[in-house]
């Protein structure tokens, strides 16, 4: 009798950590999560616009890949998001919560725009080099400040980097007011519209091919850096346990500062992509929340830069698709953030089933 009472107390479900899971299984779980979330979003869309969700998804597809030009724009925006995520990967891998990509992008963008405005008389290749270097340095400095305080006094980096975003946003507003064109518009307008100085040159006639090349190079480079270099290994050790790292003689402070320099520089570089390679202007919406979205991309990809490509494509596809639905059904395009949110919730939730397994109370035990 007493034994029976004890059994009654045993929980219906127990949770245990999984050691590992076959790759195909974990991919399968994620795909199932995405499908469920698309179904849920489908119901939501149906409730709002009373249109067959499949038709809606079809027009989303058209919005993202409907024409060659759209494919290229989707590619350009995917590369931008991917670039930021690649930049964040090393920081997050060592569990340094760099929420400040948004600001790092903006200061990189400011630096690029400054070069385009003040150095436009330089030869094209030199101007290009200047923009590249300036944006990297600006982003690196923005990443370095919180890293130094973290290394020296253990200042909370999540909150510090978050605040740095807003300092950067105000800095951007300041420069927008300085450079406004035409006067009184409170926007910078397209910089060097007539002469296209400092714009990414088309390669093989493709306006955005250079964006793709740069970001792909970074993606491969970062993958190798994290996986095969000594510094990448140090990052991994610190991410697992700072105490282990110290015991192994790794200078945690040094790695914090070094990694945030790299992380900030790449995020600054994506500001360069955004200004010089895409919009040719600077505003407070140049980063447009992508610094935050990229955090989710980097996290979900478990810092594997190739997985990030797939997730970036998915998110940008949703964005473009939602804009298409919005214009088609006369809604506003914030529907994309809503759907993105739902899908990310499901993917985040699915991680649980990859990392843990549920053990149901077994019948045999009860008999025994």
């Amino acid at each position, binding site marked *: 009798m007493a034994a029976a009472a004890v059994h009654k107390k045993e929980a219906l479900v127990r949770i245990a950590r999984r050691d590992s899971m076959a790759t195909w299984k974990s991919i399968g779980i994620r795909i199932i999560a995405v499908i469920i979330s698309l179904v849920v979003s489908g119901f939501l869309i149906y409730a709002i616009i009373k249109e067959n969700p499949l038709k809606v998804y079809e027009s989303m597809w058209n919005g993202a890949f409907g024409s060659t030009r759209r494919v290229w724009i989707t590619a350009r925006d995917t590369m931008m998001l991917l670039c930021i995520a690649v930049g964040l990967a090393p920081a997050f891998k060592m569990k340094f919560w760099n929420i400040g990509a948004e600001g790092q992008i903006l200061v990189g963008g400011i630096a690029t725009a400054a070069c385009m405005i003040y150095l436009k008389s330089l030869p094209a290749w030199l101007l290009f080099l200047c923009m590249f270097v300036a944006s990297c340095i600006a982003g690196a400095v923005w990443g370095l400040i919180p890293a130094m305080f973290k290394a020296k006094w253990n200042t909370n980096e999540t909150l510090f980097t978050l605040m740095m975003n807003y300092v950067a946003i105000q800095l951007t507003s300041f420069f927008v007011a300085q450079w406004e064109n035409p006067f009184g518009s409170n926007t910078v307008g397209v910089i060097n519209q007539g002469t296209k100085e400092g714009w990414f040159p088309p390669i093989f006639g493709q306006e955005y091919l250079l964006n793709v090349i740069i970001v792909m190079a970074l993606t491969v480079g970062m993958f190798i850096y994290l996986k095969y270099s000594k510094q990448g290994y140090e990052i991994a050790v610190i991410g697992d346990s700072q105490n282990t790292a110290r015991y192994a003689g790794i200078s945690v402070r040094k790695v914090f500062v070094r990694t945030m320099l790299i992380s900030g520089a790449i995020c600054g570089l994506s500001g360069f992509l955004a200004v010089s390679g895409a919009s040719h202007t600077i505003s407070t919406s140049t980063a447009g929340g992508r610094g935050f979205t990229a955090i*989710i991309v980097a*996290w979900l990809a478990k810092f594997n830069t190739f997985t990030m490509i797939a997730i970036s494509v998915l998110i940008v596809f949703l964005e473009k698709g939602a804009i298409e639905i919005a214009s088609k059904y006369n809604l506003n395009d914030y529907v994309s953030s809503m759907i993105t949110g739902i899908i990310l919730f499901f993917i985040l*939730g699915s991680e649980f089933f990859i990392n843990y397994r549920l053990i149901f109370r077994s019948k045999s035990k009860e008999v025994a």
Partner: protein
Amino acid sequence: MTGFISLFQAAVVFGTVIMFGAVGEIITEKSGNLNLGVPGIMYLGGIASLAGSFMYENYTENPSTFICVVIALVCAFVAAALGGLIYSFLTITLRANQNVTGLTLTIFGSGVANFFGGSLNKLAGGVGQISVAATSSGFRAGLPLLSRIEGPIGKLFFNYGWLVYVAIVIAILAQWYLNRTRTGLNLRAVGENPATADAAGINVTAYKYFATCIGAGISGLGGMFYVMDYTKGTWANDGTIENLGWLAVALVIFTTWRPKNAIWGAYLFGILYWAYFYIAGLTRSSQEIFKMLPYVVTIIVLIMISLRKKRENQPPEALGLAYFREDR
């Protein structure tokens, strides 16, 4: 003097939005949950109150102001608490990463709010922008008797909608709850060291859920105050709530996790935010530099508390960390 009065008034109204947000987030963070979804939650609260009162005002002949206000309050609190529930379910039960989940909640909340805020009227078959005049006037009603006081004293202290005073009361109650009640102390124990709290027989999961959902509900009232009082019952897709939400997160640090400090801290942030408007001779670009002030001050506070290492000023020890009993 008139300049100071109008600056102070602007600061109080502005501060109330972030005071709600910050007090809610303090309760959440005291349980060890760093919810970066505050902007999203405030968005949810704002839009739910607007949608609820809009439906009521639209489908009733003579909307009663009292019912308008109750509907808006309930909608805002429930919607925001539901946002907190999504966050809790993902981070506590499904053990997802807190920062990432919070940011996703912000994306989701801003999407939902701006989507419905921009198209609610269209979906309901109307034209133009949405507006809930009756509800808004209900919220902007001042305190009885006291609001009639004339002169600078009246203008400085009694010239606001009643929610301004509710915010102060909630902050004081939260302070009392966290420091003077048994459950409040238990909650702090969960945020400081969940393993110890668990060993002491405190239901860690229940406390985390409770604190996060109630905290989110309170933060959501900030969004509602913004919509009903600050913008007088209208909606604009201009991202202001998101900025205010992050400022609320900043204020949490500034208060060193004490709700009572949120009262003056929020007004101080308001003064810092609006100071540029009242300083003569600023160009438009230098005004932007001035608007940095609240963030820069927060950074300085953050650095100071990490420098001085006073134990009572530190963030909750287990802030941002998930607790799994099995992982110990």
